[in-house]
Structure formats: C-alpha cells, structure tokens
C-alpha cells in the first residue's frame, strides 16, 4: 500500500461493494483472476493489489 491511510472496515466494505457491482455489470477486472472467483473476490483482490479504480470520500454528508 502506498502513502494512503489505512481504510476503516466500513470504507473497505463500501468500496468493495461498489466495485463488485461494476464488475458484475461487465467492467473489466484490473487484476488476473481465476475463472472460479466471483465479482466480490475480484474486487477484494483489486483492493489488495491497490488496483481499485475507486477511492473513498470521507466527508460525505
């Protein structure tokens, strides 16, 4: 992980959820994933490898 501050568990869940939805609707995975993994697994993998094209915005009101 880069200089980014560690995500809270809420941020992790939110960002993985959003990415998994994109993937399930046909977005291209940014990581190599095995055929058996589903959208959420891919999203988790992407987050782990810091390849998520999404960011969290903490000051949502």
């Amino acid at each position, binding site marked *: 992980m*880069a*200089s*980014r501050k560690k995500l*809270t*568990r*809420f*941020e992790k*869940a*939110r*960002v993985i*959820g*959003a990415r998994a939805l994109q993937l399930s609707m046909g977005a291209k995975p*940014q990581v190599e994933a095995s055929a058996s993994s589903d959208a959420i697994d891919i999203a988790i993998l992407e987050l782990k*490898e*810091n*390849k*998520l*094209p*999404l*960011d*969290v*915005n*903490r*000051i*949502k*009101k």
Partner: protein
Amino acid sequence: MKVEPGDFVDVERVEKVVKKKRAKFPEKLIYEIAEAAERRDLSDDELDELVKEIKKAYQRAKVEQGEAVGTVAAQSVGEPGTQMTMRTFHYAGVAELNVTLGLPRLIEIVDARKKISTPTMAIYFEEDYGADEEFVRTIANRIGKIILSDVLADFSVNYASMSITVEIDEDKIKDKRLDHDEIIGKIEKAFKKVEIDKNVLSFEPTISESKHAIRELRLLADKVRDLQISGVKNIGKVVIRKEGTEWAIHTEGSNLGAVLKMEGVDKVRTTTNDIHEVEKVLGIEAARNSIIHEAQSTMEEQGLTVDVRHIMLVADMMTSDGIVKSIGRHGISGEKASVLARASFEETGKHLLRASIRGEIDHLTGIIENIIVGQPIPLGTGSVGVVMKDKKIGGRK
C-alpha cells in the same frame, strides 16, 4: 521493588521508545508504562517489546470513523443496568448516612435532577489539618446543623405565667466547640421578647388574640427548640470518620460553595454528589467529570464494570452545550435540530404540528430522519462516499 509516589520515574526513556515506535500515547499511559518499567526493572529490549504490544492493544481499542458509538454505549450501559438492584438504600460504611445508590441513583444522574434525593458531601482537609482531630471536629460542628435544643440542659413551658424557660448547658456547648456569646447573639436576633440571665433564658410569646394564647405559646416553644445556632445552609447531619491517617467529614445535604471557602478544606478532594451544584460552583467541565465519576462509582458499587468511554460519551452529550442537560424529553432528545428526529421520540403530533406552523426545514443529516424517508443512513458503511480515481490506476504508489 515498589515505586512509591514521588519516586523518580524515567518518563523520558519511555517517551523515546514510544516515538521510535511511531506510536502516540496519552501522557498518563506513558507515565504508567514508565512506572511499570521501573517496578519490573525492564531492560531496553523488554521495554521495546512492551511498547510494541501496548501499541497493538491501543490501536485495537480505538474506534473507527463511522462506528455507531452511541448505540454501543446505550447497550453497554443498559445491559448491566438490568442486573442492578431495583431499589437499594444502602448505608454507606459504618456511618449511618443514607445514600441513594443503584438504579434510582443512575436514573437520577442521567435525568440531571435539580433536587437529588440524597445529596451528600465528602470533605477532606489539607495536609496540616487532616490529622488534627480537634480541628476537624470544630469544623464539623460549624458545618453540621445544630439547633438550640442540642445544647439545652433544661426546657420548660410555663402555662401559668405564659413563658418558656430554658437553661443552656455550658458543657454541651464546650463539647460541640461552639461559642457562648455567638449563640446568645443568634437568639437575641431571632426572638424579640427574651430575657437573658446568664444561662437561663425566658421567652414570651407575642399574643395577638387571647383565645389563641396557648397555641401561640406552643408554637413559640417549637421555634425556640428548633432555632439553628450553627451550621452551613442545606447541610444536616455530619459524620466524622477516620480514613487512613486523616480525618474526613461526610455530610447529609450539600453546599459545596460554602464549604470550599472554609479554612483548611482541601479544595481538590472535597466533593459533592450534586451535579448541578458542581456545575454552579466549579463549571461545566467539572460537572462532566462529576457525571462520569458518579455514574461509574454507582455501577462499580453494584459490582458492574462498564468501559469509561461509554459513560464519557453520555457525559459529553449531557454537557457539550455548556449546561447540564438531561437525557430525554426535556434535554437532549427534545432539543434536536431535526423535526423528524424529535417527532420520532415523543409527542409526535405536537412536534409535527409546530414544525408545519413555523415552516421548519429538515436537512436529513441525522440517522432517524434518513430511516424515516428510507435512505441509507450516514453511519458505518453509509457514511462513506465512493468516487472514481482519476485516470491512472495505482498511479499514486
């Protein structure tokens, strides 16, 4: 080796290690580590390891942003609350002082009652005075309520001559460390028709109508007996107790402002359980501490332990506006900014009607409002927004 208070404790050494480990600890924690290191004679390596472990534990104990701390606090205080004895009137220690404890006391605290059922004070003295029993007894008699009948040797009502004759007991006055002239002065001030012949006093009632004469005389008799000749306002019985090497006074009733002004009273340790009085005399921060302390000691006394942070949150909510507010209709819940939040608590119709008359606007920033309109709530996962990263993926490595 035991570390005595006042012993040298190498705080700096710990501070250095903490800095090296890139941890940020509160001052008190650092001091405690330093103390433990001293006590256990830790080597540098051991201290390193200790700080590392504490850092881990400290991080784990922190709450994350978006955590529902309020709900957790409510549950954590509420659950042990169910195990509290419903009604206990406990006599604190050997002294026969009656103090409300248990659930009724806890309710009293969160309701921020103006008049609590058993106000009580614990008065301590500064170092030079605390061990001096004679001094403490003198002060105790000045604080505690003493009425005239406490120092009388003889009391008689004469219906023939329509007068009351009392005799003051010098020994009792001496025993209570009072001043004879002062008492006489107080009596003269309170009663107009009084004849004083050294220790024998005779009172005469002012009779307006002759047929009420007997009653007037009896009323006067009560008044004479109950004349307060010493004591601080609002304080009743006092109990003197030896705590360790020093003497302390416990009272029934409370008047922090007056007691703190007395000579020799330790202004740091002397306390009252009346939160409103603490607020009035010492300010809102002291009131906050008082709420925390009272709530926690009430729970602890019943053998229940609740993490202080839950109670601190409650205390913070109650005091954050600069005045002590209760939890409930008249305090926090009744003063919420959002109409829907207020309406969902109590008196729904009243709030909605008022809001519609005034044309109030609800910005839907709270939890309840968003539940009512069926939106995700701004808490936990819902408090996080998601945005696309600009172009280059992982570019900010």
